């Protein structure tokens, strides 16, 4: 399976993240799955004219390829000209290249939330960059390729959203495609592969006991649950970040900071400070997905009153001060 990769209005972080793929060397894993890069801007040998020749051959249909991976928002400005990003050495807007190449690819992958939905580039007040995603303008279907776009393989753009993406999300998507293809039923309503977007960041959160008892962190570096005060959206964000580790053993929550829901369209402008939870009458506005508000409030009040001292006290310090008790066995043995 041949993969062509382009970068535009983004930071390149999804490629950097991809290179962290573990445990095998990324290149070995892809090769053994029959996956090769036709060209990748950060990794390939070919540069300058040789690279442009490959891209032109792909865009004109002369050189067949399977997957177009795009990393970065589409910058349509200024005034629809696409001049905020012209292909180096060629002078044509990246938006034009991507449109041509998407017409030839069997499948199109949006790598990262910028590419999927527009990202930070689309969040400058007034969007002067005229930035958008491949098939979305934030939450609204459309984007560069249009709401009705289907690649030759019959799928809309596959949105491997995340800022950055987890290496596994990309590698597994590519390998699934190579092995057995993909269908609409493999994607959620926002075009994201269900194998990772079917979960919530909350699932497997290492702070689960603090969440259960609403024992909340009050300041950065506290061990408690980050939902009530410090802006955590883990109970609403779609991703399996706490079920598969990042960089060996990490995740945002394991790093001690809030999930900012970077797999969701519009995460860049939440309408409040990222590290603060907006509340009405002391109750967080953003409640856990699928949770009726009255039940949440009732359960929170109950669990707060039942919080063990150990959990309450550990929640507001940066290292454990109270250990769990060791139960003495009965029977006098």
């Amino acid at each position, binding site marked *: 399976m041949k993969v062509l990769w382009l*970068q535009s*209005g*983004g*930071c*390149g*972080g*999804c490629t*950097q*993240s991809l*290179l*962290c793929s*573990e*445990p*095998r*060397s990324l*290149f070995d894993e892809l090769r053994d799955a029959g996956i090769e890069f036709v*060209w990748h*801007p*950060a*990794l*390939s*040998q*070919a*540069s*300058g004219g040789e*690279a442009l020749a490959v891209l032109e051959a792909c865009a004109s249909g002369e050189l067949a390829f399977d997957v177009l991976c795009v990393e970065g928002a589409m*910058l349509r400005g*200024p005034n629809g*000209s696409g*001049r905020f990003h012209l*292909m*180096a*050495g060629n002078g044509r807007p990246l938006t034009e290249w991507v449109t041509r190449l998407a017409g030839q690819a069997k499948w199109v992958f949006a790598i990262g939330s910028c590419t999927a939905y527009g990202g930070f580039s689309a*969040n*400058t*007040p007034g969007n002067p*960059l005229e930035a958008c995603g491949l098939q979305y303008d934030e939450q609204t279907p459309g984007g560069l390729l249009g709401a009705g776009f289907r690649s030759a393989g019959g799928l809309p753009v596959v949105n491997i959203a995340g*800022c*950055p993406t987890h290496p596994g999300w990309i590698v597994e998507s590519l390998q699934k495609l190579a092995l057995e293809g993909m269908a609409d039923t493999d994607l959620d309503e926002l075009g994201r592969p269900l194998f990772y977007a079917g979960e919530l960041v909350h699932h497997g959160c290492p702070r689960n006991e603090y969440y259960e008892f609403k024992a909340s962190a009050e*300041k*950065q*570096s506290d061990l408690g649950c980050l939902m009530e005060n410090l802006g955590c959206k883990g109970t609403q964000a779609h991703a399996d970040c706490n079920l598969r*580790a*990042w*960089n*060996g*053993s*990490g*995740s*945002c929550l*394991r*790093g*001690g*900071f809030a999930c*900012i829901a970077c797999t969701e369209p519009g995460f860049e402008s939440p309408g409040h*400070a*990222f590290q*603060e939870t907006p509340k009405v009458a002391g109750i967080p506005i953003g409640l856990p997905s699928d949770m009726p508000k009255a039940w949440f409030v009732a359960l929170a009040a109950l669990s707060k009153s039942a919080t063990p001292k150990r959990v309450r006290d550990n929640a507001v310090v*940066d*290292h454990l001060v109270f250990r769990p008790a060791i139960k003495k066995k009965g029977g006098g043995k």
Partner: protein
Amino acid sequence: MSRIVVGPFNRVEGDLEVSLELEAGRIQAAYVNSPLFRGFEQILVGRAPLDALAIVPRICGICSVAQSAAAATALADAMGVTPTPNGLLARHLIQATENMADHLTHFYLFFMPDFARPDYVDRPWHPAIAERFTAIKGSAAAEVLPARASFLRLMGFLAGRWPHTLAIQPGGSTRAITAGERIRLLALLREFRSFLERRLFGDALERIGQLASKAELLAWADGRAGDFPAFLKIAGDLGLERIGRADDRFLSHGAYGLFPAGTWQQGKTVAFAAARITEDTERAWLLADQPRHPATGETIVAADKADAYTWCKAPRYAGQAHEVGALARQVVAGNPLLLDLVQRDGGSVMARVVARLQELALLIPAMEGWVQALQPGESFCAQGVMPDEGSGVGLVEAARGSLGHWLTIRRGRIERYQIIAPTTWNFSPRDATNQEGPLEKALLGLAAGEGAPPTIQHVVRSFDPCMVCTVH
């Protein structure tokens, strides 16, 4: 005279194009163009000050932590907060992990593959280099990616993930390291040390750190197995110590309390004063103005400006272009090996690569020391209060050089945010006085065009450019 446009330069971070004026196949003038505009300084305006910690890492996927550290330092400056000792050590470790991973990625994945090109098929070293360094398929990539991924497991502990962490805060870090994790960190560093000593250097890191002159370096490398000695052999054969020289004016913000801040030219180190920095927009597609200090800087798009050729501003120190990066950092710090290389042959492709790899040998032992100095149980994060009105400056070193953030807060919101990234210095365009940027200078006189060897590729990549930062 003829004109050619070269690009895309791949195996750099982001987009780069260079226009060259040639006379008899030699470069007479170079114009460096960053053909992508991103506009992060505008994204930050009007946000809550601490939002910068979530936004600025997304400027750059390869130096996201350096961006976070610059923002956290600027915010700490505005708040009057000093990180706790553990917080400072954690931040050093997070920054050094990114910097060292970047040095490794640059050498193995971005820089060395150019010597595997068929252009060099007649050189005696070519078969071995092509086997080891051909992009994606070479034997080195298969070893380096797992070594890099394993090294970046430090980030799983210290920063949650990489890139794009929110762990770095003005007062230190959100992530207190436990006694057991401290042992894991040390084990991971030893694993990475082992890779470097076996494959990159063929010797102990401490021995590389002690090399103090060009003569010592070449004598050490002679006949030695290892990827660094292999590079030095190529450098000797192709004369890489004589190509890629800019103005030999260097600047560093200083790093880790190990490498002091300063500027260097003509054999003299001079104290650094941030007040002497200006940014010129004469040749950028931005509204032209007097050169301004970044604390009062503006970034206003003027896409149809005549005579402009890039989205990159032209930073100047005391009105002069300066080179930044590992070489600058080490020269300013008085590193004997790099000073010797620069004083003999000037800043060059070879000196820039040597500086990066010697930094790896110097920093990994320092990181081992920082891990051992962590005090589990003591605080990792000092708390403070964000003022409604204030300003702050954050000056740090990314792998590829000096990074500065300047912010102003009014009525509890960010009023102004200006950034000068390393590659903005190195790949700066001409300014109002027509003074070229370092890369524009470094390319002069080199062969280019049809049939020329890939020399300009080596020069461009020797700066380890990060274009997405450049055009933040």
